[in-house]
């Protein structure tokens, strides 16, 4: 089912809008993540799609039909809550069959379909237990089975994995992705975990203060963040930022002056304070790149296949990856470098990206001064 939000506003007090003139289109069968820090309005958005909250203004369409005043029960949605919200007085089977019971599905068919849904999330052996007798991961599966049992048109997932431990998280991530693909169901995931959003979603809407900052595919967000906020939110370890000054096509970064091609920039030329962003992956030990930075090793974190090294560059910190066999000594000065094509520029005042989206990798190579 295609979902459209048009110019939605919602506020819980008179002072400010929780959701501020938000528009969003989700195609049929698409998996979309709403990503943002807590309090950015992503859960509110989801609850409006579910019909629990009513928007103050604006319209919500399901397949072109206005649903602003449709009750949640008539919207044909399934939802998994952060707290799972299982019914504690019912067994697992009763929990899963509950939505079907409300649709007046005959008892035998109901039990049959509930069992199928339970099989799908590998819960077939726990049907007679009460929710309190299950582990967190199992409760989460019950909630998922309950959400999909009535074959809804939309699946809403509200931070479904924030209560699971790291390993279970990865397992459930794969499981939810698999089920979503199998059922081809339009899915919306609310999360503050960018990794979750990146790995599962077809498209991600990055939200802040009730507004969508950028809405595109995970790779697009990673490679071409339109905003400083998106850049620092997406990617682990996060993007490194250094202070710089940009005037005309000259970038001053620490003691370097770098010539940039004007075609490369979306910028009017006046001197501006900028954040220069470089992904940790793009930084290499040594001086083979166009941009060279000297810093003092401050912290080393081995992660098996690699090491994350944290160096102090003046007052700023820069993280980058180093091969695991290279020994890094604390307090030693090292030189690191990156290609000019790898840097991102953001206006310090507005947060806007100063790099043109359309420039692709091939062009940048020849623009290097």
């Amino acid at each position, binding site marked *: 089912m295609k979902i459209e939000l048009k110019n939605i506003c919602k506020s819980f007090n008179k002072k400010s809008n929780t959701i501020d003139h938000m528009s969003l289109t989700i195609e049929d069968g698409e998996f979309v993540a709403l990503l943002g820090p807590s309090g950015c309005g992503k859960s509110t958005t989801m*609850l409006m799609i*579910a*019909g*629990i909250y009513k928007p103050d203004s604006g319209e919500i369409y399901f397949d072109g039909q206005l649903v602003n005043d449709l*009750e*949640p*029960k008539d*919207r044909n*949605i*399934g*939802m998994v*809550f*952060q*707290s*799972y*919200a*299982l*019914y*504690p*007085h019912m067994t697992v089977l009763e929990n899963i069959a*509950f*939505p079907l019971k*409300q*649709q007046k599905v005959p008892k035998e068919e109901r039990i049959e379909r509930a069992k199928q849904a339970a099989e799908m999330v590998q819960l077939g052996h726990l049907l007679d237990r009460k*929710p*309190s007798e299950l582990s*967190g991961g199992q*409760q989460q599966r019950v*909630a998922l089975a*309950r959400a999909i049992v*009535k074959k809804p048109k939309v699946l*809403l997932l509200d931070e479904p994995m924030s*209560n699971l431990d790291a390993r279970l998280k990865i397992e459930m991530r794969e499981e939810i992705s698999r089920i979503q693909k199998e059922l081809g169901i339009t899915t919306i995931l609310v999360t503050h975990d960018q990794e979750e959003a990146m790995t599962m979603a077809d498209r991600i809407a990055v939200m802040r203060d009730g507004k969508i900052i950028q809405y595109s595919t995970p790779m697009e967000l990673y490679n071409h963040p339109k905003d400083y906020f998106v850049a620092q939110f997406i990617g682990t370890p996060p993007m490194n930022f250094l202070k710089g000054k940009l005037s005309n096509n000259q970038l001053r970064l620490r003691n370097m002056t770098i010539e940039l091609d004007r075609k490369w920039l979306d910028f009017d030329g006046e001197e501006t304070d900028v954040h220069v962003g470089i992904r940790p992956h793009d930084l290499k030990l040594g001086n083979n790149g166009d941009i060279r930075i000297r810093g003092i090793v401050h912290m080393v974190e081995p992660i098996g296949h690699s090491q994350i090294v944290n160096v102090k560059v003046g007052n700023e910190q820069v993280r980058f990856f180093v091969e695991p066999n290279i020994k890094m000594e604390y307090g030693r000065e090292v030189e690191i470098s990156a290609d000019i094509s790898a840097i991102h520029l953001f206006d310090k005042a507005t947060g806007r990206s100063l790099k043109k989206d359309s420039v692709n990798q091939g062009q940048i190579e020849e623009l290097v001064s």
Partner: protein
Amino acid sequence: MEVTSYRSETAPVMTSVSKWKKRIPFIIAYGVLGLTTLPIILMYLWLLLSSFSEQMKYGFIPVRFTLENWKFLWTSVEHGGSELPSIWTATWNSFVFSGTLTILEVIIGVMAGYALSRLEFPGRQALMKTTLLLHAFPSIALLIAVYYILNFMGLFDSLWGVVLVKTALQIPMTAWIVKGFFDDVPWDVEWAGLIDGCSRLKVWFTIVLPLIKPGIAAVSIFSFLSGWSEFLLLYTFILSDENVTLASYLQRLISDPNLVNYGLLSAVSLFYMLPVLLFFIFTQKSLMQVSVGGGKRV
């Protein structure tokens, strides 16, 4: 939750001395508590002994076993020259009074509690603040006003009238207690019900109410007990014999200080206590178990 038992692993061989030393705090605690509760226990014991004996020597030594005092159960009793109404009428009336009170109080209290806990309406805060004040009102202060109202409505000398008065006085507290239980039900569970296809009313019945069962049980028990022990309102507003309740029945036995039959009084008192004890034995389980919430708390 299981507690890790690291103590047993490291425990050295226990000597009897250290065992006793460990018990000293318990012995002291139980000793003090036992001594202070002794008067209460003795009171009940006296009641029991006095009801089964012909007289109490020096006031506390029972003399000769008898069932004479309990004959009010099968014959009518004469007291102070007039015949008392049957004990069974009084018992039935007490049950009717407490039962209706409980039903009314639970139905109204649960609905009011939900509204206070979940619904946004103007004056909600003010209502909650004044609720407790209302409960603090002593019923004796209202006796005369209540008399006029009952008389006007033709409910004077009727159990139903007193039930209504008592319900009105009890509702604030009940609603307040129930509100606390509703507060503990997460919004998520209610929303899940809405999304799973229930109307708001149906969610309330099929999901929210079962979750606050312990609360409903607690409130029912308290209201039944307070109905059972109600005296002042019944004594004031009920005159006729056929509407007498157990508390007023007891009062008749001690109304004339010169004519008190202590054996009979003890027996009736014990009889009066009996249903409450039984009720308590059967309901204490639901008072103890409290389980609200459908998963991990966030």
